[in-house]
């Protein structure tokens, strides 16, 4: 099954371009050779759309069924953490852009989606976080994402593509390093794309 395969122009050097990306991530479709030239580059620092806030923390803990009073009880958090804190597992949420804004939604700023590669299907493989400071209500976080490696083409049970390794540094508005994240992401095409 192909999804929205566009009409191709025989004179177009991109005539064999992959189907339009429907992931919503604006995957940059290109070649492995182009991707290799990106290794070592960092994206511009991207800032969160909203401050870290208690309602989103509680909504997230509700979704995860996490009863930890650090996230629910303001007095408990004030006494033990110096204020309300967010769960470390939701760190990336704070820098994911809103889906719509009056001035135009921003795209996800991550090397794994911006690096040019043939794969138009995304899936995450592994991720490692080191946390240095709690994330506090009122913080505005930013992220700087660097491309470390692209694997040669590999085929898995999902499809054929490339494993992308990136390192992202998360900072708060005081410039403090809150966390570092090493991530491996697989961008692939399924057999039905070809």
């Amino acid at each position, binding site marked *: 099954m192909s999804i929205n395969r566009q009409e191709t122009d025989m004179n177009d050097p991109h005539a064999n371009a992959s189907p339009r990306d429907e992931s919503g991530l604006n995957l940059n479709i290109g070649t492995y050779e182009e991707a290799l030239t990106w290794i070592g580059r960092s994206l511009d620092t991207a800032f969160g759309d909203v401050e870290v806030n208690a309602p989103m923390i509680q909504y997230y803990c509700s979704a995860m069924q996490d009863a930890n009073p650090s996230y629910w009880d303001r007095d408990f958090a004030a006494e033990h953490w110096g204020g309300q804190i967010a769960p470390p597992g939701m760190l990336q949420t704070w820098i994911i852009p809103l889906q719509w804004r009056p001035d135009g939604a921003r795209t996800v700023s991550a090397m794994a989606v911006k690096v040019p590669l043939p794969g138009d*299907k995304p899936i995450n493989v592994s991720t490692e976080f080191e946390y240095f400071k709690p994330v506090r209500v009122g913080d505005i976080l930013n992220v700087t994402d660097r491309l470390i490696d692209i694997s040669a083409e590999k085929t898995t049970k999902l499809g054929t593509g490339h494993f992308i390794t990136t390192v992202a540094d998360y900072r708060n508005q005081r410039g403090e390093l809150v966390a570092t994240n090493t991530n491996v992401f697989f961008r692939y095409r399924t057999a039905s794309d070809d």
Partner: protein
Amino acid sequence: MTKPALAQIHWDDVAAGFELPVVSMEVTYKVCILHVGAGWDYMPGHHNPDYARAQGQPTVFVNTLFHQSFVDRVVTDWAGPLTFVNRRRIAMKGSICAGDRIEGRGVVKRVYASDDGDGRVDLDIVVRNQTMDCCIAECTVTLPRRRG
């Protein structure tokens, strides 16, 4: 507001080899949607079953943040709310999909002090659904030390 009574484990009382209580969760389609709305990750594989199937998945599957957060719950549901997660590595070997029932099992690997004298605990965690081990994780946390 009700106060959940999550007792705190102290570093001094933890021994290598200890097996944590199992944490389980029914990952219904509604849970998947709640997590998309709460975590802001709208990649369609997480909320659109047709897209997930076109990606080669059986149906919608949860994202990395869900795996991370559930691993953290396996640790903090046992260790308590004064726990600080220093490090967590996860490998997502299999998808957790709408309709799955997941169970998280942890075991204490090592108990030691950091250079600054903090009480550190290393744990291995596995999250499995009814078919396979989906998430293999390692975690390092800081627990409070008893005084005196």
